[in-house]
């Protein structure tokens, strides 16, 4: 039965992927640019939802891996002229390796200390980049060659988002989900069931970090120039977090709903940037107070309530 649901997810994802693949042939440049942003944010939000919603690790380290992906991608492109698929694979590896390297220190910390630890990691990497002239220092690096056209980058972002969504479908629909939820609900009881909580957390952290690093790489190449304050900026972390909370933390469709909502809101209020930030903040506060399950959780509740009312 569970495999049925997994193949159902796969079917929907494949259909959406094929449909969206052909978007550049009919969509305007503006629509393509928005879609590109949706794909990048979707990858970040899915990864954060895996860590925080599913495994229960509240991470503020998204920016560390966005920045890591950006710098690794520029290094590979500028020094080796590497093609984008190679760049993405190396960035994914780099993200996973960094996650594995810092996990002995981070997983020693539980709860809020883990969260602060991930925040410190982003700050540390940012300071490191600012102070290392090899990596361009505070002024950053430019891409030596012209970036590929938007349509091609859009396909890359779409592919990364597909990989992220597939990974999440596998985590949510197979027996892996039972293990992940056990670790989130009660680590000690899970260990007593033979689950190795450290390995589960490390695997999720490495997977999320690999996905975030790939998104960071595509995003940086699209920009054509990176500098530490942007690449390792706290804004990446806040964006991913607020999108998932608005969409519905822990829900399968939460990241997608949150990303679409926030990106559309941003476009509607594009001429009033201050109002955009303020309104997002107010929405966040109102949702946390009245609908902690976010948009998806709210609809799920309304739906079950109405079905309950209609049944005798």
């Amino acid at each position: 039965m569970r495999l049925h649901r997994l193949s159902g997810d796969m079917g929907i994802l494949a259909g959406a992927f094929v449909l969206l693949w052909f978007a550049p042939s009919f969509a305007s440049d503006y629509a393509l640019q928005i879609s590109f942003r949706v794909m990048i944010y979707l990858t970040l939000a899915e990864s954060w939802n895996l860590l925080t919603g599913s495994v229960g690790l509240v991470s503020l380290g998204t920016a560390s891996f966005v920045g890591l992906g950006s710098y690794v991608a520029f290094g590979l492109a500028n020094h080796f002229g590497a093609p984008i698929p190679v760049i993405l694979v190396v960035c994914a590896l780099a993200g996973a390796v960094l996650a594995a390297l810092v996990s002995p220190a981070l997983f020693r910390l539980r709860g809020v200390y883990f969260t602060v630890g991930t925040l410190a990691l982003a700050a540390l990497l940012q300071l490191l980049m600012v102070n290392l002239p090899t990596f361009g220092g505070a002024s950053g690096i430019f891409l030596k060659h012209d970036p590929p056209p938007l349509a091609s980058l859009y396909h890359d972002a779409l592919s990364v988002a597909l990989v992220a969504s597939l990974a999440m479908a596998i985590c949510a629909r197979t027996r892996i989900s039972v293990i992940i939820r056990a670790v989130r609900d009660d680590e000690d009881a899970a260990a007593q069931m033979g689950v190795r909580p450290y390995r589960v957390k490390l695997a999720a952290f490495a997977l999320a970090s690999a996905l975030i690093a790939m998104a960071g790489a595509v995003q940086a190449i699209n920009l054509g120039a990176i500098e530490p304050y942007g690449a390792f900026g706290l804004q990446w972390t806040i964006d991913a977090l607020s999108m998932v909370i608005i969409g519905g933390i822990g829900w399968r469709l939460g990241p997608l709903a949150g990303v679409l909502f926030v990106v559309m809101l941003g476009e509607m209020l594009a001429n009033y940037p201050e109002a955009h930030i303020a309104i997002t903040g107010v929405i966040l506060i109102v949702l946390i107070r009245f609908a902690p399950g976010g948009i998806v959780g709210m609809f799920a509740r309304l739906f079950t309530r109405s079905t309950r009312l209609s049944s005798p």
Partner: protein
Amino acid sequence: MNAAAAPLLEVTGLVKRYGGVVAIDHVDLQLWAGTITGVIGPNGAGKSTLIGMIGGAVTPSAGHIRLGGRDISRLPASERARAGIGRTYQIPRPFLDMTVAENLEVAQYSMAPLIGAGPARSARIELLQLTGLLDVAGVPARALPLLKRKRLEVARALALKPRVLLLDEVGAGLIDSEITELITLIQAVADASVAIIIVEHVLRVVRACCARSMVLNFGKKLIEGPTAEILAHDEVASVYLGTGGARQSAPAAPKDEAAPPPRDPGSLSQLIAPRSSAASRPPLLELQGICAGYGQARVLKGIDLQVHEGEAIAILGANGAGKTTLARTITGAINPTAGTLRIAGNDAAGRPAHDIAGLGIAHCMEGRRIFPTLSVRDNLLVAARRVDRATAQQRLAAVYELFPILAERAAQGGTSLSGGQQQMLAIGRALMARPRLVIFDEVSLGLAPIIMDRLYEALATLKAAGMTLVIIEQDVDRALALADKVYVLEHGIFGLAGDPRDIADDPRLRHIYIGTAD
């Protein structure tokens, strides 16, 4: 049992220290496949610590645990589970948001990630049938009542296909008929390849399931042998009933430190609230039909009790009978679900704890609850904050007179004291509020006989000075000697009540404690 074969689980010289406290002191244990062993002993004897160390949740300070010859003493809990040790938690810890079936899947898929879905499902159905959970397989664990949660604990441990199964108080909080079901379940899961340890206060379970038992007392193995012999043993009866301590230590000459100093009754009056002068006054404490519990576990099922000024009441009962719950209900730490609670005529049911303390009820809590960061003096002064400095100092002097050792240690940290001194501090702190009634919850638990005598002398002095006392005790003899009236709690109701002399001779008292009444 084949004694010549190597034991499946072998525990040698196991020690667990928490700071200066030794919870488990050089315990040895051997388990053979196909046997069920009972572990009994008073609260705080170290039973759950022993389970925790075998299961891997608690790291031993010294000693070795070998499973089938392999030393597993330093392995984390997950590796022990994989090596074949399944345990249950005393307070069930299911994954609340998962269904019952998914709870079992955790164990199945962590042990065998690639097991086929079909075999896994039929194994689950078999386990659910065995534990009587098949009809709730799709229900979230959160919706299960306590008994079913305990069964889920057992089912989940069995899903590991363990070679050693550790059942930690799976019978606590269950009523008689539920215990019968539990015994049937344990007998059904026992087979020739598994060794089972049952830690239990419900001795009926031990008697029905365990061929052999060991008794833990103060972290040490007191005795081990066939269960029937163990339960008939005088020493075991005295660990539970406390008769040995009182009889042996009464004639012993008290040590210098413990000698009660001559007292001026005037100083004690600093600690005892003046009696109300009304001619026909209501009882100081009155309970009618009080029911209370924790979530699914109903502990008190209709308690009636009257305490008049100047009386000393003893409340006895086996572990899990509801004694501490009764104390917590009176002092407002938990709210009764039914019944009336009056303090000096005022309705006090559902009022917060500090209100009830304001009505003159002090609670000397089980486990002492000393503030570790405060000195002995500050621990005492905390309880007398609403009075002026001079009055507080007078009360402090009166407490020091009752327990001179506290004056000597006044500047030390509260938890640097020995267990007995900490208990004196807890009693002194309860008195600092100058209460009208003090509830003493298990003041003798975990203390050496000589210290218990010293504490009971202090309680006798307080009673003689006119204090109203409610004493909750497992140590029957000492409580009977002090009380004017005795109530025996059994399964949340008073099974026995009356004059201490009559109760002492009542064979039902022993039955209630040891459980032969079944």
